[in-house]
């Protein structure tokens, strides 16, 4: 009995002092160490990916694409024709943008993007998707009641504006080209890009403001 208690106490002591990671963190460490040993991934690649998507790659990339489409009619045409090819001139192509499709908002049409299956998203131009995009609530309701969802995002869509909901897949992903706001004439690409919000490129934001 005594020895059992001593062992238990020693065990408890080890636990308290070990900073044992959470269960999912341990499972990830497990998977990564085995995947590296098997040559399925390189740890440098994983580290570089994590750094890039935590710090550098975000919706500013997509905003530049939108800004260029606003300023350059030829680029806009190329983007609408084959977005996956068009974004190559920025060097923004990635595994999630091979079959990228750009859909354009107009006075009478609003586009909105969802992935009803999981969370497919053009992350090499928009960065990691926001938490709500991955939620089962958004994935279900965006298709069922898009106007209601839009209203919750603060977008009150007039009845005469049609909503088109695009369901992303592993193969086809979307970026919404929002309408260029009035009052931004003569702005350069950088200044225009600064007013393009991430949500506008997913379609949960519609009216951009020419401020800044």
């Amino acid at each position, binding site marked *: 009995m005594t020895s059992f208690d001593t062992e238990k106490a020693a065990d408890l002591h080890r636990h308290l002092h070990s900073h044992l990671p959470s269960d999912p963190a341990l499972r990830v460490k497990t*998977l990564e160490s085995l995947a590296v040993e098997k040559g399925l991934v390189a740890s440098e690649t*994983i580290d570089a*990916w994590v750094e890039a998507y935590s710090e550098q790659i975000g919706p500013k990339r997509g905003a530049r694409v939108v800004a260029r489409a606003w300023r350059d009619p030829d680029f806009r045409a190329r983007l609408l024709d084959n977005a996956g090819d068009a974004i190559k001139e920025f060097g923004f192509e990635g595994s999630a943008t091979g079959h990228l499709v750009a859909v354009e908002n107009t006075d009478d049409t609003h586009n909105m993007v969802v992935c009803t299956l*999981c969370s497919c998203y053009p992350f090499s131009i928009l960065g990691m998707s926001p938490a709500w995009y991955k939620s089962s609530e*958004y994935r279900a309701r965006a298709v069922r009641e898009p106007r209601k969802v839009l209203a919750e995002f603060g977008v009150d869509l007039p009845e005469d504006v049609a909503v088109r909901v695009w369901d992303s897949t592993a193969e086809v992903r979307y970026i919404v080209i929002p309408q260029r706001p009035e009052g931004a004439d003569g702005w350069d690409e950088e200044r225009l890009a600064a007013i393009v919000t991430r949500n506008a490129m997913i379609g949960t934001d519609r009216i951009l403001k020419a401020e800044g």
Partner: protein
Amino acid sequence: MFRPDDPLAPRDSVFDEAWQAQVLAMADTMVRGGVFTATAWAETLGAELRRAEALGQPDTTQTYYEAALGALEALTTGTTDLTETDLSTRKAEWTRAYERTPHGQPVILDRGRD
């Protein structure tokens, strides 16, 4: 439920915890490396998300990333010669390695091996 972004709010960090980023990094790298297809990843992740929902898990990012981890484990053991036993053995080794490593020292897998 959904709120417009507050432009004045501090920017959320992209990932709540490092392991979440590592899961997606591994999945994307394995898709690009041809270990499994993007479609297989989407379908497996979708199935894990539906399972979590059916089990009544909360609709949170934690649930999402745990589903992603489950999908990655399922695909890795399903498409490579890694087995579930490999995973459980290695996890036990890492657990022991952490428990046996004193404060401030790097955690080395060998410490967890008997």
